[in-house]
Every structure is written in C-alpha cells, then in structure tokens.
C-alpha cells in the first residue's frame, strides 16, 4: 500500500473534523460547543489513561492526580498579574512575577507555554513516582496509585499559598476553545497510535500479555511501563490544563474519584489497548451522561445517571470484558485500501454475494437486499 493511500484515510478524517469544528465554531451554539470541548478533553484523558494502563496492564488509579497537577500548574502560570495580586497573595516570589497571558496576534502563546510546562511537570512527577510504583503489579499498583491520588488531593488542600486550599481557584482566563482541544486530542491520538505499533509499544503489550515470556526474550519490564506512565501523565497534565481553562474555576474536590471512575468507564467500554476504542468509549459515555442528565433534570431523580452508568459498567465487565474493541483498532489508515473492503462481509450482503459468486456473475456495486 502506498504512503499516499495510507495517509488518505486519516487525512480525510482530519479534514472532515476540521470542517465540522469550523461549522460548530461559527454556529454560536454554546451548548454544543461546550459538549464537544468536554468530549475532546475526555478523549485526551481516556486515550492517555489507555496509554499508561491499557497498553501496559499496570492499572493506575492516580491518573486524575496528574490531571489535577496540570490544571493547577497551568492556571497558576496563566493567571494575569492583577488577579495574582488579588487571589494568590502568598505565592512564592519566583512564581508571583510569572504571568503567561501573552498573545501573539490572536494566539495566546502564553497559554500554550503554560500547558506545556504544566504537562512536563506532571510527567516529571510521574517519572519520579513511577520509578518506584511501576515495580508493583496487579491490585498492588492500583492501591499505590490510589494512594498517590489521595496524596495529591491532600497537597492541593493544604498548599494554600499555591492553590488557595479548599477555596475555589477562580478567575482563570477561558482560553480553552474548540481548536485547542481539537488539536491536542489529535496529538494524543496520533502519539498513542504510533506508539502502539512502535517497538516501544510492542514491548508494553508483550510484558502485559506474558511477563515471563517477555523477560525470557530480553524485553525489559520496567522501562516500557515507566515510559507509558510518563507519557500518559504528560497528556493527563495537558487535559488538566485545558479543563482548568475551560471551566475557569475549580477546587481540589473536582479531581477525585468521580472523575477517575468516569474515565475508567470510558476506557473499559472502549477496550483496554484500543486507541479508537477510547475515543468511541468517551463519545458514548459523554452522550449517554448528557441524555441521562436531562432525564435527571426532568424527573428530579438526581443520582440516577451515576447508577445507570455504573450498572452499564458492571454489565460490560461481566459479559464483555474486553470492551467494544478489545485491542483492535478502526482501520482508519486502510480506509482507501481496496484489500480492506474486499474482505468486508456485510451481514445483509452475504447471501446475494454467495449467490452471485456461485452463478459466476460479477457483483454489482453497492448490492444489498434493497439495492
């Protein structure tokens, strides 16, 4: 298959997305814009959790901790001078002078820099923590990363001078828009997609599927786990920065179990190890919870949506543990490969095809029962 043909599928998808985003951006439908921004942020979270947990099988419950670090770090960095003096009076000197609110033309480059710095900070912490925690397996790593989440929360509550403690961190400039989240979501999907098929990614899957066999052929166990954990934390930090500049005011309670469980639900429904699964899982859960929220508002049965989502989660994990996709992918890079389509057997086309084949007739294009 030629490179051009391989790139055609993703290219068409990106152009279609860009057109859809431009239309949405022009439409001034604040509700739909907000929904899509939310969706894209959850795509970033789910794909990055998939990277650090699905690819390696080392299940982390601390992902939202990295998101919190990203959100707070970026918000502290972009807060304009005047707001800093008002709300973060006790900021240490070297931070108090920083205000990444610069713009280059229409682009807030300061926000981009803040996002990158915050995400790098999350990744650096992940490296430090991961060097120790990635040695654990199974539920032990889950417990230890849970401990990390609690520690981050206690820190955010107590580091008053940096985070305002339990008080709301507010007046964050609403930089996040469709384009920021769209581009970052594309970046994380691209990185995860490429990584999965790279030697590094194969190592991650190999040590996940059979640790002893992987070690026996000389694959390190710790290195791929740590790499996945750090990259996952980086994008969790990005998601945090975007989320903070989207909701513009938040407190440490935002970044705790509810969010953790929501992202895990998206991941498990899509399939641990499948990048396309994470995207689709996030889309499904966001849509579903929006619908449920409306039902809740109409019936005043608050709590119903969480119960339904948890119920669906239990059903999925009981009857279809690999989620919708397992670790397979939507073959977006082979969309324009005739070989893909020749193998596709649509359920309603089967009998006709077989009949046609046995009669030795060429198959008419687009044939189906109604066609």
């Amino acid at each position, binding site marked *: 298959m030629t490179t051009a043909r391989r790139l055609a599928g993703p290219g068409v998808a990106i152009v279609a997305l860009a057109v859809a985003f431009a239309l949405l951006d022009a439409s001034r439908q604040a509700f739909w814009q907000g929904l899509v921004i939310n969706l894209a942020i959850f795509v970033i979270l789910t794909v990055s959790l998939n990277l650090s947990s699905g690819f390696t099988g080392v299940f982390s419950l601390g992902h939202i901790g990295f998101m919190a670090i990203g959100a707070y770090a970026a918000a502290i960095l972009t807060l304009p001078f005047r707001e800093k003096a008002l709300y973060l009076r006790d900021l240490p000197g070297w931070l108090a002078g920083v205000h990444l609110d610069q713009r280059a033309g229409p682009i807030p480059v300061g926000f981009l820099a803040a996002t990158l710095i915050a995400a790098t900070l999350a990744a650096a912490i992940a490296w430090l923590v991961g060097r120790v925690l990635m040695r*654990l397996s199974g539920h*032990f790593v*889950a417990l230890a990363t849970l401990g990390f989440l609690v520690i981050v929360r206690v820190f955010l*509550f107590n580091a008053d001078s940096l985070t305002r403690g339990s008080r709301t961190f507010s007046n964050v400039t609403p930089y996040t828009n469709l384009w920021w989240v769209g581009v970052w979501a594309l970046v994380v999907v691209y990185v995860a997609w490429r990584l999965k098929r790279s030697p590094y990614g194969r190592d991650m899957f190999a040590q996940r599927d059979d640790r002893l066999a992987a070690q026996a052929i000389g694959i390190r166990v710790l290195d791929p786990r740590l790499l996945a954990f750090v990259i996952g934390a980086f994008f969790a930090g990005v998601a945090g920065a975007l989320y903070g500049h989207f909701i513009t005011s938040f407190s440490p309670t935002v970044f705790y179990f509810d969010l953790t469980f929501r992202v895990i639900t998206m991941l498990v429904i899509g399939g641990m190890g499948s990048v396309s699964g994470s995207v689709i899982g996030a889309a499904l859960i966001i849509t579903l919870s929006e619908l449920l929220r409306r039902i809740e508002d109409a019936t005043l049965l608050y709590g*119903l949506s969480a*119960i339904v989502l*948890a119920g669906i*989660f239990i059903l999925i994990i009981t009857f279809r*543990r690999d989620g919708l996709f397992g670790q397979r992918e939507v073959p977006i890079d082979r969309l324009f490969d005739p070989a893909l389509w020749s193998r596709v057997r649509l359920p309603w086309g089967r009998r006709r095809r077989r009949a046609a084949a046995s009669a030795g007739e060429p198959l008419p294009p687009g044939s189906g029962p109604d066609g």
Partner: protein
Amino acid sequence: MTQYVLQQIVNALSAGSLYALMAVGLAMVFGILRLINFAHGDLMMIAAYVAVFTLGAGLPLAAAIVVIVVGTVVVGLLMERIAYRPLRGAPDVALLLTSFAVGQILQNGVLLITRLAGLPVQIAFPSPELLSGVVTVGAFTVPKVNIVSFVAGVVLLGLLSFFVTRTTLGLSMRASAEDLVAARLMGINVNRVVAAAFAIGSALAAVAGLLFAIQAGQINPYIGLTPVLKAFVAAVIGGFGSIAGAVLGGYVLGLLEVLPTALPGIGDILPPGSVPPEVRLALQQWLPSSLASWRDAFVFIVLIVMLLVRPYGILGKPEREETL
C-alpha cells in the same frame, strides 16, 4: 503529661478499633476471592442511614442495632450475589473496578432515596443518649463513644477469632483463603463460605458505621470513602488477606494517625526546664500543629512504602509475583 499521653492512647485505640473492624471485612473477602472490595466503606454508610431511620423513628437502641446489622448484611449479601459472583476468577483489576461501580450505585442509590424522602444531603446523626457525651475519670475526660468503640472492637474481634478457629464454617473459610481449589476439592461449599465472609464483614462494617456516624455527628452518602481507604491501608500494613494482620494493621494505623497530632504536643508537654528553650522552639516549629491536616497524606505514604518494602504486610507470607 500522663493525662495527655493517656488521652492520645485512647484516641488511637478507638480509631484503631474502627479501622480493624473495617479491615477485617476487607481481608476476609480478599483472602478468599482476591477481591479488593472498594464498596465495603459504603456498607458503613448504609448502616449509618439505616440508623438514621430506625433511631429517628424512636426504636430502642438494642432493637435498632439488630435492624442496622441485619439491613447491612442483606445489602452485603446482595452485592456479592449480583455483582461479584458472576465475576469469580476474573482478573484482579476487573474485580476492583467492579467494586468501584458497586460503590457508585450504593452512594447514588442512597442519594436518590434521601432526595425522594425529602431529606437534605447532609443529615445530622441522631446519636443515642447512651452513646453520646463524655466520661470523666479524675482529670481525664474521654467521649463515651471512643470507649464503646474500643470495647466493641475487642469483643467483636474476639468473637471473630473464636469463629474462625473453633467452628467448621470458620475453618472452611481459612481453608478457602489458603487454597480455593483444594478447599473445593475437599468438599467445601465455596459459595457458602464466600457468603459467610460477606455477611460477617458487613455486620462488622455495620457496627463500625454506627460508631463512626456517632463520632462524626453528621452523615452524607459519601462518608464511606475515607474509612475504606484507611481500612485498605490497615489491611496492607497487616498483610492483605490475613485476618490477624488486618486487626494488627488497624491498631497500628490508629497509632500512626495519632502520632502527627500528638507529636507537636511534645514541645509543650516537656516539663519546664528539662530542655533548652531553643530545642522546645525547634520542636514546635518543626512539627507545627497544621501537620494534622497532612495526616491522610502521611498515611498513604506509609501505604506506598509498605507496598514496596513488604507488600505481604507484617503478618502475611511472601507470595510469588508481587514486585519486580
């Protein structure tokens, strides 16, 4: 000085009893099924809510306790039957995540019911007369509930130890925890053993929930979260899956928790003139009382260190494949 130390010891023992009651329930289930039951804390919460309705309805304390325990055990058994039994033998993480989901259902279910009953999210707990107030012995005052917690913990854990060592069901439970397949081959009815583990764990959680609610004074659907996290830590410290370890871990955790709050006191309680003023000042500055708010972080750092250094806990046995 002695009074201060005694006070802290009583605090530690009473908190330790609650953690031990919770941790034992976690450890029994984990020992048999390798399931970390995150929803265990929500059983405490259920017990507290049943208590609100029964005590609020004016039921005498003894009757109320029976209703609370039975109600919580029923919820615990339903949880096992509906959510966990279909998942027997699933990977560890699938079980853990399912228990997360069960917790969500319980919390939001209670939220839904209280809303329908027209109650606010945060409810003041109607503490029974008998268990509220303080006891004064000389110059020494402790809340009654702390003493009751300690006594209840010791009595119930004693009963539990009798049960697991002296009864057939208790022995089958230990055998199943040792080796589930072999136990089944010996003709042990595993479903019965698992149900018993859940029932006992739920009953202990019910007592812990009642005592916790009295101590806290008010309840909401999310109160189970912090205690269950602490109980995890207790179970890990003692050796996950070992009942004796869970009890030990609970009391160790109780002591560990009191330490950061008790230590800043040292600067103040040293007899005057026994240390130079600079040392006293240093003690006060190095361990400021605000340290207490970092307590949970301290507890979880202990958890992480424990997992790394001795993942099988103080009393547990090393198992294959826990760390690299």
